[in-house]
């Protein structure tokens, strides 16, 4: 009755992505390891700008998220999509364009981030030309995926594909929303939003990069690879439906939990918190459906490394999606935020969930694609245990470090004085934990090398099947359906599914972001807050270039332990000229929002040259190039013009005299430094002067002049 069609699955593209996954996995983890070493061994910064922690950290996060996990997603999607739809990919050319385009973007990132080209938005650091390239390649991926979906031979879309579609549409929206920026020159741009609004948009993006890049596509992969590897039916179809829609709808709202107790209005913080709490069940729906699919196959988990990796991956997913909401409870966040607790938390997710699911998938895919058996099950077992040990050695010390440091930050003497008033004491206390973390990371990476060896041997022993023959009934055999379940209707309609997902993910963002941008009372104005001077502006951009925000927050929370340590808590009105916002999310060093006027200029000069000269035992890397390099003032005019266009009230024509102002202020600072005995040729033209100007300005706007000059 049915006409059967012959066709071939494209394995070549899957192989390419799989190789890229392993390659970038190693690179990303090596860079992470370098960063881990730098945190207890400042010499590992090598005294070179390009290898300094502030630039290395975004390289690590971008490499593991977008290069390692990104290629992992594409590996799994390109493999499973074809089979779930009984169709070859829509276009081999688009597949190849997607692959090479994505790798080119990664290379561009690996070059520009160490050079200091960064927008400073976490996980969206890449500058505008690369943002455009990402959008282009992502759209190509979307066309290729949707083309395949439209020419499919399977009438209904499996749950994995719902997740792929939601991923694609949401990442598109997030990427566009968070990269609304106006270029100053080829490698510098300013975001459209400033201060608290920029922060909200960034964490709407940042949180959902976790949700829709590290979570939903991997849930899709889980839904394909676990039932395949276990050869068991999915536990509950209706659980898939409920948790899918609940997950994508609720996730979007949770972004503000990254901004608890900041200057973000309380109502938005509370929305972020309660939606995070409501997210527990939808997340666990995925975990349950994954684990319960293994009912009746648990005996094989003992022997099959693929299943082992996947069980731990899904368990890690469950743990971090419970921990996440707990961390979103304001009173817990008061303890955890800015500490290594957060770092430990995300690594349970990335090393456990993303890493282990990727490894399980690769161990399953390689023998299939090379038409052979895995070279060594014992080696894979060994990798499993090494990896598990790596995760534990990584996470436990960091949890310990986070709790220790947070408690030290908050401890008062009965006289009302902070017990550890010197921030550095709380850092040196946890350095052994940082060292242990680097050990954990090394162990994990060793496991990856064991895998690569095993997979290479497997590749050698097999014959690659570039085009895998398959057959399926033609599309014409589709019949009209009387649906057994209402949801079947949309499973036949990819476009409607796409639109419905888009609506589901737009609601949360719109409800939170629109009032923040449109309603003035959400950001009360403060009269005394003025735009940065040109020199301060240039200094601020150096602060961005060096990635200072990676270790220093600029957001004092309304806690006694913070106002005693840093000064008055931060107000949203103080940040209206901050493009981008620089609140930070981790305090490896102290908060800097009120550092202005705290130390003399000469202190900063010496501190940047060698932090241990002013702060013995500091783990901050030295920045000697700031003292020797001349400040580039050619960009001042363009910067002033762009900022004015965006709403910063520089007077018309100010750009023509901006550099005169800049030099005047620089001369003043250079004079003060000379007064303290710092003699240097051309000091007033050096970058250090600009960064001192910026630091000395920080947080001083709302202080009465008298207090600054007391």
């Amino acid at each position, binding site marked *: 009755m049915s006409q059967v069609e012959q066709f071939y699955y494209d394995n070549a593209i899957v192989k390419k992505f799989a190789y890229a996954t392993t390659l970038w996995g190693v690179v990303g983890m090596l860079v992470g390891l370098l960063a881990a070493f730098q945190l207890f061994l400042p010499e590992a910064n090598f005294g070179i700008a390009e290898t300094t922690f502030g630039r290395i950290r975004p390289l690590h996060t971008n490499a593991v998220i977008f290069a390692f996990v990104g290629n992992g997603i594409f590996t799994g999607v390109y493999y499973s999509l074809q089979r*779930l739809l009984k169709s070859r990919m829509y276009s081999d050319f688009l597949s190849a364009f997607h692959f090479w385009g994505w790798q080119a973007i990664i290379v561009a990132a690996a070059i520009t981030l160490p050079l200091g080209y960064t927008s400073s938005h976490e996980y969206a650091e890449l500058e505008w030309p690369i943002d455009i390239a990402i959008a282009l390649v992502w759209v190509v991926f979307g066309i290729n995926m949707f083309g395949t979906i439209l020419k499919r031979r399977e009438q209904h879309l*499996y749950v994995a594909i719902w997740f792929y579609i939601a991923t694609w549409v949401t990442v598109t929206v997030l990427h566009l929303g968070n990269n609304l920026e106006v270029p100053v020159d080829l490698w510098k741009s300013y975001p459209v939003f400033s201060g608290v609004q920029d922060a909200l948009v960034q964490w709407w993006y940042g949180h959902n990069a976790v949700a829709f890049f590290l979570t939903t596509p991997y849930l899709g992969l889980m839904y*394909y690879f676990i039932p*395949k590897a276990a050869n068991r*039916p*999915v*536990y*509950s*179809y*209706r659980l*898939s439906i*409920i948790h899918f829609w*609940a997950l994508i709808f609720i996730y979007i709202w949770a972004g503000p939990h990254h901004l608890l*107790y900041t200057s973000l209005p*309380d109502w938005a913080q*509370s929305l972020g*918190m*309660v939606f995070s*709490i*409501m997210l*527990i*069940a939808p997340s*666990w729906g995925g975990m*349950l459906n994954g684990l*319960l699919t293994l*009912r*009746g196959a*648990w*005996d094989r988990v003992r022997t099959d490394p693929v299943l082992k990796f996947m069980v731990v991956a899904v368990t890690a997913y469950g743990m971090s999606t419970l921990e996440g909401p*707990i961390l979103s409870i304001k*009173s*817990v966040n008061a*303890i955890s935020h800015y500490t290594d607790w957060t770092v430990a938390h995300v690594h349970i997710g990335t090393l456990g969930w993303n890493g282990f699911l990727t490894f399980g998938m690769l161990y399953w895919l390689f023998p299939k694609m090379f038409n052979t058996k895995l070279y060594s099950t014992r080696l894979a077992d060994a990798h499993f245990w090494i990896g598990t040990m790596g995760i534990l050695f990584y996470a436990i010390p960091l949890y310990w470090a986070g709790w220790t440091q947070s408690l030290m930050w908050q401890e*008062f003497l*009965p*006289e*009302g*004085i*902070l017990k550890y*008033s*010197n921030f550095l004491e709380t850092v040196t206390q946890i350095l052994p934990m940082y060292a242990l973390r680097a050990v954990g990371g090394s162990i994990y990476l060793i496991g990856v090398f064991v895998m690569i060896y095993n997979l290479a041997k497997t590749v050698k022993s097999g014959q690659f099947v570039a085009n895998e023959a398959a057959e399926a009934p033609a599309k014409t055999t589709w019949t009209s359906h009387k649906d*057994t379940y209402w949801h079947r209707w949309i499973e036949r309609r990819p476009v409607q599914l796409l639109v419905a997902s888009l609506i589901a993910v737009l609601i949360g963002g719109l409800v939170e972001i629109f009032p923040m941008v449109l309603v003035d009372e959400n950001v009360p104005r403060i009269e005394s807050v003025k735009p940065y001077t040109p020199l301060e502006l240039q200094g601020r951009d150096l602060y961005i270039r060096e990635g200072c925000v990676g270790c220093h927050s600029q957001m004092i929370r*309304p*806690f*006694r332990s913070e106002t*005693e340590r840093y000064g008055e*808590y931060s107000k949203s009105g103080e940040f209206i000229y901050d493009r981008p916002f620089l609140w930070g999310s981790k305090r490896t060093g102290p908060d800097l929002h009120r550092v202005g006027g705290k*130390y*003399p*200029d*000469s*202190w900063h000069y*010496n501190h940047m040259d060698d932090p241990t*000269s002013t702060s*013995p035992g500091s783990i901050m890397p030295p920045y000697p190039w700031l003292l020797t390099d001349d400040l580039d003032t050619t960009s001042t005019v363009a910067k002033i013009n762009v900022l004015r266009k965006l709403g910063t009230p520089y007077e018309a024509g100010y750009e023509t005299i901006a550099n005169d102002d800049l030099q005047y202020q620089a001369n003043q600072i250079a004079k003060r430094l000379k007064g*303290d*005995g*710092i003699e240097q040729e051309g000091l007033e033209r050096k970058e250090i002067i600009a960064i001192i100007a910026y630091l000395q300005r920080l947080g001083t706007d709302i202080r009465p002049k008298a207090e600054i*000059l*007391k």
Partner: protein
Amino acid sequence: MTSKYYKYTLSLIPLLFLTFNLLANESETVAKTSEAGILDWAMHNIIALLVAAVIVMAIGTLFYFNNMLLQLQKIRLLQEHGIEVIEEVKLMSKEPWWKGFYKKLTNAVPIEKEEEVMTDHSYDGIRELDNVLPPWWVAMFYGCIVYAVFYFGYYHVFDYGLSSREEYEVAMKDAEVAIKAHLASQTDLVDETNVEMLADETEIAIGQSIFQTQCTPCHGQVGEGNSIGPNLTDEYWLHGGDIKDVFRTIKYGVPEKGMISWKAQLRASDMQRVASYILSLQGTNPPNAKAPQGDRWEATMQKDSSATIGMNQQ
């Protein structure tokens, strides 16, 4: 085999929740230190509570097994006496209550009967069961939603809860009261009006160790001064060379000159020790000393003994 793993894992979940809830509430009570409610009590006695729970469970289990053994003994005795046992089958096949409870919580169709809930879906060989949503999961979902609505209503619709700012103000007031109470209980409090030079070697040594961790970046290893701060070993002072002056300079700082205030970082008694140590450096003439700054301090002309400096002020 299959469900055993789950049972153990799942039974941990309520416990985890309880622990985290207690933790969460604890820090909330810390934020409003004045409140010391039942949760505060529970947090401080969490180990005791957990132990109590374990003991109760252990006793319950003991009772259960004891009861079962007694029943078995009864059956054996009855059989020995040739009395027919009707109860036996029922007793031995009876499920313990928690198994029934667990089944109610998960409501999963057993693997043997899974064809009953198998859908006709098949994607690349992947089939789908249509088990009902696990009731415990549904309950948790609803619970979280109720919590969310309650929380948002409490804080933002009906405005019962404190805002972040109000919480902060409460914490500051509480701290102020506590500090005042503490200071009132202390005798001989030191401030810039009554501070005196310390002569005791051990006090000076403490001052020296504080100096070496906090002051050397700007004033050098032995007070010789550097590009940031002035020489502290000569007779020239920018802000006065009397013990009270030095104490005041340390306590309040001289922000326009870059000297930071230490009153939020050092106890008064420690500032007195540091000030005493600094004045004990008078006339030590260290190498690399910075050129004099400020005015020559007349009252410290006698530079042989630090004790005399202290005496002079009396």
